[in-house]
């Protein structure tokens, strides 16, 4: 178990290293660049040269990468040139990371909270109205562009009905104390209930938009997995042994069906960042997604490098956690 974990972590180092090289080269192949983005069309030749040298972009790319790697190992990923000029990339990341985590956690919790029970019920009453509605709903759910759904929710609940805030993380003017950077948690910790409620209200709509695809996928995988398990011999054996239905459902059906579901949850969590880019843009939510979109626009190399590497790392780590959680759910995996 420990050896397996270590091997996987070692693999992660490899993936991150290769990825950092690819990202590094590829970003510098993008048309434009931070110099043009900063100076615009008006920059004189001299000013451009000066800035290029200042950013170290006049050196060969291998030298640049070597320096980047050296500094990165000591935790310095360079200073932002476009997103929040002057701030260090890691600072921007740490500042925005909690926002996206908060959003993703609420989204995945929503998806799991609705997806698993509904998927289970749909499988139990296969062919019933709930089953049909769920299957059709999940098919439509993946066919709707995420950003359009975000717009729809915003238009309906924020613009037309005015029930929930339309943008941002917190209402301006609300004097909330910052402790962790997770606004809802901050409000709870400092007992500023109004701040916590306000932050939560800001999360509802973007999280709903972000949750649709994970919900649809989790629902369908749960349903398929439960249907598979219901057909298994050991379920029939358990029934013939005279075990009560609730015990069979809890111990035999749900537990065995959870394996593929957990994997799916992991994969969906990892993929949330892509959806977050779109959702955060619609709701002007100051998270990683917004920084990424802005970073591309302004060719902010340090910020983009850090964010993409971090996104890939989170993705790989989440999947490692998922693989390890198999051992908890399924004893057969442990002995291997």
């Amino acid at each position, binding site marked *: 178990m420990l050896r397996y974990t270590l091997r996987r972590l070692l693999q992660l180092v490899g993936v991150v290293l290769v990825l950092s090289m690819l990202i590094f080269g590829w970003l510098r192949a993008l048309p434009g660049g931070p110099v043009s983005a900063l100076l615009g069309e008006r920059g004189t030749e001299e000013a451009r040269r000066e800035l290029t040298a200042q950013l170290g972009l006049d050196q060969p790319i291998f030298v640049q990468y070597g320096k980047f790697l050296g500094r990165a190992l000591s935790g310095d990923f360079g200073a932002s040139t476009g997103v929040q000029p002057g701030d260090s990339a890691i600072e921007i990341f740490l500042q925005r990371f909690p926002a996206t985590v908060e959003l993703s956690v609420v989204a995945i919790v929503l998806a799991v909270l609705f997806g698993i029970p509904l998927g289970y019920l749909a499988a139990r009453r296969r062919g019933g109205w709930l089953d049909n509605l769920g299957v059709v709903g999940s098919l439509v759910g993946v*066919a709707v562009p995420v950003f359009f759904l975000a717009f729809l929710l915003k238009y309906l609940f924020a613009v037309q009905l005015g029930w929930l805030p339309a943008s941002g993380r917190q209402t301006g003017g609300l004097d909330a104390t910052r402790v962790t950077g997770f606004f809802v948690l901050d409000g709870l910790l400092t007992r500023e209930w109004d701040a916590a409620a306000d932050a939560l209200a800001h999360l509802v709509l973007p999280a709903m938009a972000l949750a649709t695809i994970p919900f649809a996928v989790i629902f369908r995988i749960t349903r398929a997995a439960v249907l598979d398990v219901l*057909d298994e011999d050991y379920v029939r054996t358990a029934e013939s042994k005279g075990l009560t239905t609730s015990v069979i459902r809890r111990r035999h059906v749900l537990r065995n069906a959870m394996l593929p579901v957990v994997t799916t949850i992991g994969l969906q969590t990892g993929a949330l960042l892509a959806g977050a880019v779109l959702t955060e843009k619609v709701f002007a939510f100051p998270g990683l997604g917004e920084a990424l979109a802005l970073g591309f626009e302004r060719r902010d190399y340090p910020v983009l490098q850090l964010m993409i590497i971090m996104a890939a790392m989170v993705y790989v780590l989440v999947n490692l956690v998922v693989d390890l959680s198999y051992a908890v759910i399924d004893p057969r995996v442990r002995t291997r």
Partner: protein
Amino acid sequence: MSGSVSRSGSRPPTLGGRKERLDALAATAADGPGDAGVSLAASAWRRLRRNPVFLLGAAIIVLFVVVALLSPWLAAHDPTARLLEGQVSRARNEIPAAQEGFPLGGDQVGRDLLSRLLVGSQQTLMVGVFATVIGLAGGLLLGTVAGALGGWVDSLVMRVVDVMLSIPSLLLAFSIGALFPSPSQFTVILAVATVQIPIFARLLRGSMLAQRGSDHVLAARALGVRPRAIVFRHMLPNSLGPVIVQATLVLAVAIIDAAALSFLGLGNPDDSIPEWGQMLGGAQNVIDSHPNLAFWPAGCIIIVALGFTLVGESLRDALDPKNRR
């Protein structure tokens, strides 16, 4: 509806997420062609014909393609002509409403919305088909090479594929799209296609690997069939089923992703020739005051994406050897 929907439940245990699902899908090819007297394709078709989910999806796709082909004659007006320009006022935020001859009104610059929707189906179909074909071709190349050769080539190709899969899909499309000095329809297609390459590669490689040890390949090898002929005549055709399923699903994803790119400002900036994703992305600035400009193209995208998804899912079930009865 119920009968067909519930059939999808008896799919093989979809252990795992994207990678594992692709491998599971790939493994369905390994069983080789017809073992019960009826070929897999024939038995699949027999079940599909009675499947309302498939029929609904197929009807949507047929309608979509017919509209795309006939749109120049169906559209009442020239989609590029600003016929209602006089009714557009940027200052007062006015956009032409529905009126005689213009059942859906005009767009931001006074072009007939209905004609643009009709003609837009052409470009939308093109984006979907080309993105899928390019993604498939790339994946086919990588997957076949890796799966057929094995060894270090396989390891190398699959590491590259793993790195590509470790970046969230839209982020990758976004990155590819940003690679070009000026976005165009071509860069949109290329960006959307690139995301699909590792998916197809994994699928094909899994299918190839599963077949390498199978009886029909062994038999062909024993008969002295040249390796290249084994790959192209025996292994590739057997992988077609899962590939077709994936391609159908990808068509839906490609159309949606193209819309997302437009929304992020990486779409084709030249909007004289309409495309649904671009129309939807372009409507974001006026969505609060004129939501209909977004609703119509979005509705079209959703229906078409749903059509491809329905066909893809029912094909997947029908081609699954586990479901043969």
